[in-house]
């Protein structure tokens, strides 16, 4: 599904990614964890095309990043900070996004809008949305689009408890339908419950990539993360 090979990225003299290799399989929910400055967002930015890597190969479903348009149709990305056109309504924005990926399925859109409790606010300008509402709106777009892979940066930030439950349900359904998830998070207990594999990034290199079941046999994700950080240091 998602293949990253020898991914390297530097900003001037500062090397952020020094040869990241990663394979995410179809149906996998991969939790991408790491300390601040480990290179998580840079990796995501390289995958999504926001940054151009210095070296390495990135492909999704065998489609190389160099085939820009087809490649970008393979994923939908929800960043941590969502910048929106303030005077555009959430619905107009989603209806603008969906045709970029394929046909508009109004029934599906209405369903997810209802599940995330945005029936009224979806018609309001996005400038009036709270941080959590922006994430809900992006999740509605993502689950309506149903791309092959969903890439998210801290997707649960700002979500209210109801939305977190809905998010987990939708995620499960999406994966059962053949979707793949790649998301970065600092919430290790959440990653432990949602993900079926974990990747830990430190100083621009992957120091652990393992199935969650195997990891859980060794202890909590928190203790493994802390131990790995200490050990690698």
């Amino acid at each position, binding site marked *: 599904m998602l293949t990253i090979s020898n991914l390297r990225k530097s900003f001037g003299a500062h090397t952020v990614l020094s040869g990241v290799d990663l394979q995410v399989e179809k149906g996998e929910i991969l939790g991408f964890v790491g300390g601040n400055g480990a290179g998580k967002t840079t990796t995501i930015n390289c995958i999504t095309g926001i940054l151009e890597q210095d070296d390495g190969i990135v492909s999704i479903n065998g489609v190389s990043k160099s085939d820009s348009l087809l490649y970008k149709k393979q994923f939908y990305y929800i960043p941590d900070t969502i910048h929106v056109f303030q005077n555009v*309504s959430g619905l107009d924005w989603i209806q603008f996004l969906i045709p970029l990926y394929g046909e508009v399925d109004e029934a599906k859109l209405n369903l997810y809008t209802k599940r995330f409790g945005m029936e009224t606010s979806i018609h309001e300008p996005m400038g009036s949305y709270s941080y959590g509402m922006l994430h809900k709106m992006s999740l509605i777009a993502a689950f309506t689009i149903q791309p092959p892979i969903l890439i998210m940066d801290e997707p649960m930030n700002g979500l209210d408890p109801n939305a977190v439950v809905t998010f987990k349900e939708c995620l499960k359904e999406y994966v059962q339908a053949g979707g793949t998830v790649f998301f970065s998070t600092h919430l290790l207990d959440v990653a432990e419950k949602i993900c079926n594999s974990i990747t830990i990034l430190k100083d621009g290199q992957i120091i652990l990539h393992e199935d969650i079941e195997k990891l859980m046999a060794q202890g909590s994700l928190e203790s493994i993360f802390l131990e790995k950080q200490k050990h690698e240091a």
Partner: protein
Amino acid sequence: MKHRFPLPFFFASSAYSIPKQIAVRVTLLLALAYVVVQMAMVNVAIYNMSALPIYLFYNVAVSIVLVYILTAYFSVSVVFSYREFGLMASLPVKPQRIVSAKVISSLLLPILLTSILQIPVLVLLVWGMKWAALLKTILLIPTLLVFTVMLLVFLLSLIQLWRKHLTTMASLVLNGVASLGIAVCFILWIVTSSKLKLTTLWSDFSMDTFSSIVQSINTLMDRIYTAVGQVPLLKQVIEVYTSSGISLRFLLVLFLFWFVSFLLYQGAVQSLAVNYLQNGRAEMGSATFKKSKAYAGDNEWGRYFQRERWVLQSEPYFKLHVLLSMILTPVVSIGFLLADHKQWMPTVFLEGGRLEMVFAYIVLFISCMNNTSGTPYSREGKYYPLLQSLPFDQRKVYLTKVLFSSMIGAISIISSFVIFALFGYATVHSLMLVAMVLLLMFSYNLLAPLYDRKHPLTEWKNPSEAIKSNPNVIFSLLFGLPLLLVLSAVHFGLLLTSLPVGLSTGAVVIVVVLCDLLILKKTAWGANEEAV
């Protein structure tokens, strides 16, 4: 003092940041060096052509005009912007302190840039051993620059008293209109007070020989100098500056300017501080968001245009720029045609059917220089990552940007030619010129965004940084202007031959069509490759 300084530097450094890209820095330096060299050449020419008083007068005039334009432009992004409000409102700092820091920081760049251009003047005065003039220039120029900046900032700050009743867009428009209005009033005051006859200003302008051109320019400069010297108040300043030696009157004039500048500074600070909190809240627009209409059709191009419209609507400053792009060319056209109608223009440039051509190229260059085409990718700002991560066809994105700016340009060009026709100048040839100007504008719009497409400056804090203060503008001119300059030179060159004027325009139109097709093929198809 130690505790008071960081705030002005905070505003100055956040408003005028040095670009990160080395190529852009080098280009900015080269552009500045070019301007200094050009100014030096003009200075040497005027210094040698005319008497010292006239030379000193023109130095003051150019400096004041320059600092006025820079202040009118930069004040929007520093003094009258409330971008810092979210950061400052919660800090234990008095509005007066914040505002005074903003006002002081607004002085820095206009005065610094104008002062750099004084270097050739000072060198010439040292070279000529004009010590009194040198000392007076060192003392008077900064004084007049500070006075000009403070006068404009004070007058514009009065608008801010009603800022809370205005939208950001209305406030920006009012600022622009007021800056232009003050300048126009000042010129009208000079013209009426001096009884300057504009019809006779160019009456004996001759371009027959080089010496006759020099003589004509000299006479023109002398006439303006004499006329301005008759205006009350200005007369005193010119006299004390251009007279030999340093008199007590000169020192008194200096003192008076500094005193008035200080009063203007206090007035500006007070009128800005009184409503700082209300204005800041209004600018933050926390209350309501007006829902924008969305394109509901299935056409893919419609959605791309929709997105471009959203980007332009995202900042009032962008909307103002679009508005200016549409109206500036017709306004200049009216000015040009009125000047010709009143016979204020030098006939030497316009005789022999050249008026139409001169008009067409004025319209072309003004509409291109003021167009929104130069930095459309930088304008994306925080939305740029969306452009990169969503499956947009980059070729269509690029062409949408080109077509959008071309539509704005077309509105300004066609309205200018309608005005031209209303003045009774239109001929069949004018229609050919309209087609030529539209096609040339399109080719400019195809070329101008090419650098910005590859190296957009999206991390701006203030929307003016995305458009006019964006160093990529220089690159857009470097990419776009050469073709226009070459073709206009060829077109005017053809006039010197025996080729009928219509035929020469037709030939240029054919060349432009071919150029457009070639550029379109090369540039549009490159967009998707660059997006990789």
